[in-house]
């Protein structure tokens, strides 16, 4: 029942996105613009400052993720469909997981474009350790989206939700972003510092466990008016 509900919510969000392409296009456009602006600012004669690529990758993911979170829940607010979801005889945390999975798919598609683009523009060896990079991206986006999905759902009835979401989200997810940046920067060293990257990865997954547990635990009471 739990997994079936989560997958139903994911499938519904996917069906809407396939029809409109609204969130995918806006987040990708924003993320790519962000990377291009940074590349014009930082890359001089084909050389970027050390670690810049790692920071810019995670900034682009965090900013476009915030945009995606806001838009995803704006859809549920428009016809108050979040209430219809909450009225269903399904475990409410399953609704949270469904929405979280949708955000993760969007962020994965963003990363799929961003990583090669940053590797190209910043001449960064992002593909030197592809598995470790993949794990860092997975861990970072899960941690960021776990908190973001909870906050975006919580703020759906707030008139100032667009302002409040980043204000609440970024301070809490700073540890996730730092782990992602430092882990990715370790992979960009020559030769790649795998030990340091694995250490940051471990912290990242520990944060994921904490954030996911807290979000699943608090979703139902927070969503009951």
């Amino acid at each position, binding site marked *: *029942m739990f997994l079936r*509900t989560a997958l*139903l919510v994911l*499938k*519904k969000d996917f*069906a*809407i996105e396939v*029809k*409109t392409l609204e969130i995918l296009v806006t987040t990708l456009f924003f993320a790519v613009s962000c990377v291009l602006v940074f590349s014009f600012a930082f890359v001089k004669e084909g050389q970027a400052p050390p670690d810049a690529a790692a920071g810019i990758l995670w900034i682009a993911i965090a900013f476009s993720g915030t945009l995606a979170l806001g838009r995803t829940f704006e*859809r549920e607010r*428009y*016809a*108050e*469909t979040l*209430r*219809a*979801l*909450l*009225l*269903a*005889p*399904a*475990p*409410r945390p399953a609704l949270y997981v469904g929405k979280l999975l949708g955000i993760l798919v969007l962020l994965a598609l963003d990363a799929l474009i961003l990583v090669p683009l940053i590797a190209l523009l910043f001449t960064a060896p992002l593909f030197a350790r592809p598995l470790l990079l993949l794990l860092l991206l997975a861990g970072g986006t899960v941690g960021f989206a776990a908190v973001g999905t909870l906050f975006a759902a919580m703020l759906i009835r707030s008139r100032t939700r667009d302002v409040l979401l980043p204000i609440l989200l970024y301070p809490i997810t700073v540890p996730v972003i730092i782990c992602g940046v430092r882990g990715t920067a370790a992979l960009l060293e020559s030769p790649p510092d795998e030990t340091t990257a694995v250490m940051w990865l471990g912290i990242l997954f520990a944060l994921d466990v904490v954030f996911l547990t807290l979000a699943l635990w608090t979703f139902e009471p927070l969503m*009951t*008016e």
Partner: protein
Amino acid sequence: MSFDGAQDGSPDFDSVRLVDASRHFGRRRALTKVSLTARAGDIVGLLGPNGAGKSTLIGLLSTIVAPTSGEVRFGNQLSRELGAALRQRIGLLAHELYVYPELSARQNLTFFAQLYGLNADAVVTPALERAGLGDRGDDDVAGFSRGMRQRLALERALLHHPRLVLFDEPFTGLDDSAVRVVSDRLRRLAGDGSIVVVATHDLDLADGLVTRVAVIREGRLIADEQASTGLRARYRSAIGGA
């Protein structure tokens, strides 16, 4: 109509009762010590001016809003004891229609049918026919008129044959023929053993439809009586000339 919940194990009940239920939002008292019972076969009209607390009361009955104090009992059990399965027996149609405009009518009903654990193939097409949308089922809801959306939302709310049917201003934006269709549907639901609660401030539509009247003003229940003719005059006397 059958109440399928009896087979699926979801809790059934033949009455719903608010006992001294209050709901405060910060310092604002939306409802204060409301006690009200609705039984199977009743069509309870919740009447009152805007901001009286009708929607909050509907929210309490739907389990979306938790009472600050007091109880909501379904049969003999508290709502919090019954858990998620209780929601299998509750249907809500609110002023906001709870349908996705980006999806087609069929996609909307299929999604909600699956969410309620129903066989979508068996229930969606008949529901579209009842809504008069048999030939528009694959069109996006965004292109529908308010009346068409309202009919679709009605079918969405009733797809799972709920025991407790909650309607919050169900006649908003409907033309006369659509109002008749919704009214007839409400009577049939009550006749089949549903508990129907309708929040409205349209006294003309409520008159002759509801079997009991509960009048709310400033969050307090000020009248709860059997319906009879002359609803407007009695409402005015209860509300104080409003």
